[in-house]
């Protein structure tokens, strides 16, 4: 926690949503009057069920979607330059989205390459990143289809970190992994974050993951923000929806405990 102090010299939020609404052309409301501040260096978890607007919220930050109303402020002066904004935000998704025709090294180097980094620097950065996400340097020349799901997701994280963005957007990045690999990646991600202090907006529907990773948990339902709480307070919250999540989570634990005992 002490390490965080140095990074808190600037108190402006890294991301701020002000009265943001998002509607489909059909008129369907996906997000309604959404207000949220993401602090520098925190992992803010957006928790909610499918269709609650979590992914939309994420895509509004890097302008994959444009809000119907309201505004989203991202730290750094990008003006209307969407391309520059995107290059300074890392993005990791469940499907990973690695380029199948590029090697691991080329995948990681996509942004550095279009930013015109010299070759040696890109090469060194790739090695550094592979090591950072716990992958063998020998994998650099492999293609995505030659990797396991866990390895691919690690490459996805490395790629998002390549140009050292201050902000990371993560959309259920560990959702498609088996429980053991997921556990491993979550643990490593926590360790990584303690070194890097990125501002992370993290989408999940898994309370366990939210409690484990989140500095704060923002609970969403039907396009609205219900509450934002740190994990310990979330567990004690008397908000009906938060309590329902905790109950569902606890009953999962109990029933598996019972099965184990019988």
């Amino acid at each position, binding site marked *: 926690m002490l390490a965080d102090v140095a990074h808190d010299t600037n108190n402006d939020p890294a991301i701020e949503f002000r009265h943001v609404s998002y509607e489909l052309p059909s008129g369907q409301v996906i997000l309604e009057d959404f207000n949220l501040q993401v602090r520098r260096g925190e992992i803010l978890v957006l928790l909610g069920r499918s269709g609650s607007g979590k992914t939309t919220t994420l895509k509004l930050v890097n302008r994959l979607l444009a809000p119907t109303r309201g505004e989203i402020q991202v730290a750094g002066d990008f003006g209307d330059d969407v*391309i520059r904004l995107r*290059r300074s935000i890392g*993005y990791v*998704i469940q499907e990973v*989205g*690695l*380029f*199948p*025709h590029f090697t691991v090294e080329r995948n990681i180097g*996509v942004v550095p390459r279009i930013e015109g980094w010299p070759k040696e620097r890109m090469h060194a950065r790739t090695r550094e990143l592979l090591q950072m996400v716990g992958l063998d340097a020998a994998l650099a020349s492999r293609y995505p289809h030659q990797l396991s799901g866990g390895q691919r997701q690690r490459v996805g994280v490395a790629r998002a970190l390549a140009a050292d963005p201050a902000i990371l957007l993560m959309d259920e990045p560990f959702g498609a992994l088996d429980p053991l690999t997921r556990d491993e990646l979550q643990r490593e991600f926590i360790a990584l974050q303690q070194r890097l202090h990125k501002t992370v907006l993290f989408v999940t529907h898994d309370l366990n993951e939210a409690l484990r990773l989140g500095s704060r948990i923002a609970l969403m339902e039907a396009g609205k923000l219900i509450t934002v709480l740190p994990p310990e307070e979330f567990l004690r919250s008397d908000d009906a929806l938060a309590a329902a999540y905790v109950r569902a989570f606890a009953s999962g634990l109990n029933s598996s405990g019972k099965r184990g005992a019988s």
Partner: protein
Amino acid sequence: MNLLHFLLQNHQEVLELTLEHLWLVAASTLIAVLLGVPLGILIAHRPPFSKPVLTGANIIQTVPSLALFGFLLPVPWLGDRAERLAILALTLYALLPVVRNTYTGIRGVDPAVVEAGRAMGLTPRQLLTQVELPLAVSVILSGIRVAVVISVGLATIAAAVGAGGLGELIFRGLAMVNNQLILAGAIPAALLALLADFGIGLLERRLRPR
């Protein structure tokens, strides 16, 4: 062995007609690719246009080739030289497979990959040249392969309007009821089609992303 004898004796003419044939196919395919690939990219990115464009190309495809050659004959500049006319007609036929496969190939790129590229800050142009086209290239090539094979066959009909090519031998053979002459045109044409099919197919497999 009569056919072989004929080919040996007339190898000069058969070779010339084969080259003429190749020229018709190559020129029309080139134009079809230069027009069809950008058109396919355009409609893949602007879905509302895809239906009218593909329907249009489909309709052209349904016009009987002999009729199309006939229709184009009275057109002023075109009708002056049979070769121009033949190349235009062949281009029109080649458009459909090229446009359709470009469209299909680009639409077939994994949306997650395209979205990741956009989210990373690739410009639309970078996305097209570094992601979409490389991933669609084998599908596009297979469309070009189909276009070439169709053109090799159709180009034989171009002889009916005097555009030359291996069709000359076939039509002459038909008029003279001479099977050897027909085969002397048909066999090289078939070989050309097979060769093109094989060659482009090879390229297609080499460039297919895993």
